């Protein structure tokens, strides 16, 4: 019955890591300190600090139910609104997937609706940047090889990569999995996962993102970079 702090905190950690709601208990100060850190680390697992689409839908539905003075037209309005916003991305992402499946040889066909040009570095080599298990489906993640900033994407099991730098003035892009898109934090510009420009508030349309060749080897996502 009387468990040690290590056991009580251990049970809390087990719950977090198995995706269960942790049980309540009266924790002592040293346990609370450890638990706060554990919560931050659990959120630090790749993809763990992003809500699923289902979670967002549930929140939206509950809000709609409670905001009774604001009648809703239909429950999935927000998703519809998002889809409208990113409708441009949908076609581009599909094109990107087709192209990425071909990647592996030295020549990569450029489709009309693909993103920007393909990075072909002199003296390039395949370098692992992440384990496939660290990039769940429906997520994008910024990675760096030291010389190249990239965003790797797992789009329904198809892995591909684009440059992680905005083509306008070089700000680092921020993946937004909920929509999905890559946001430039500097000037309200966004790119589809394929690298294609989605929208911008600039005088001139920025270039699409260069694409980076990618492949899977031994469970590792590798990019052809320097």
């Amino acid at each position, binding site marked *: 019955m009387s468990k040690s702090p290590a056991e009580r905190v251990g049970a809390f950690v087990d719950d977090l890591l198995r995706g269960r709601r942790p049980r309540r208990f009266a924790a002592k100060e040293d346990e609370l300190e450890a638990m706060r850190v554990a919560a931050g*680390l659990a959120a630090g697992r790749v993809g763990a600090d992003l809500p699923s689409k289902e979670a967002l839908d549930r929140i939206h539905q509950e809000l709609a139910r409670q905001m009774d003075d604001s009648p809703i037209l239909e429950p999935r309005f927000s998703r519809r609104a998002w889809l409208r916003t990113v409708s441009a991305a949908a076609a581009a992402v599909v094109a990107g997937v087709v192209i990425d499946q071909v990647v592996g040889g030295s020549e990569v066909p450029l489709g009309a609706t693909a993103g920007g040009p393909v990075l072909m570095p002199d003296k390039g080599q395949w370098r692992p940047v992440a384990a496939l298990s660290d990039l769940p489906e429906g997520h994008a993640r910024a990675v760096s090889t030291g010389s190249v900033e990239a965003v790797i994407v797992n789009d329904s099991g198809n892995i591909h990569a684009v440059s992680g730098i905005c083509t306008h003035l070089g700000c680092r892009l921020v993946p937004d999995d909920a929509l999905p898109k890559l946001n430039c934090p500097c000037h309200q510009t966004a790119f589809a996962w394929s690298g294609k420009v989605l929208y911008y*508030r600039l005088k001139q349309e920025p270039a699409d993102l260069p694409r980076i060749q990618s492949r899977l080897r031994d469970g590792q996502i590798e990019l052809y970079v320097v």
Partner: protein
Amino acid sequence: MTDVPSSSEATPPGREEVARGAHEAAEVYADWESVYRDNVVGIYQLAMRRVGSSADAEDLAQEVLIRTLKTLRLPAPVHNVRAYLVKTARTVLADHWRRHYGDQAAITEVALVPAEALSATPNGVAADRAQRLLGLLPDRFHRILELRFLRGYSIREAAREMGLTEVNARVLQFRALRKAAEFETEVLE
């Protein structure tokens, strides 16, 4: 350096549309939908970093939004709404820790949540923070937390990997988390 996209292919929203959307985002929230759309991910992330459980984070994000929206009159300036969301989030998170774990100090802990905390962050940021935190720890502490949190080992698997009994692995995990707590404020920006 670029292929100029042809104008007939899938295009971005019209410029006026983007400008209008951005204007609204920069000035006022007209309805609860726009408050939700702009902030839900940031609130969820804030909650997730503080509770570590997706089910709890979802409930807490929902509670923060509902409490805020039931109190505020819209339209309201964006910065007012966000300031109120953060304030509400602090209260809701502190309540959670107090009710679930008897944490009486939670209100002061959570008061450290910065006002800009609602900006949605890239999904690598929490992971980078975790890596930096682990990097500050002595070897065996680093190892047990890396195996558990970043590589998904069960306590039994982690114990076997490190040549420990399960009981000792749990003790090591607890001590490692406590040690990490000493460094946490340095890593949390």
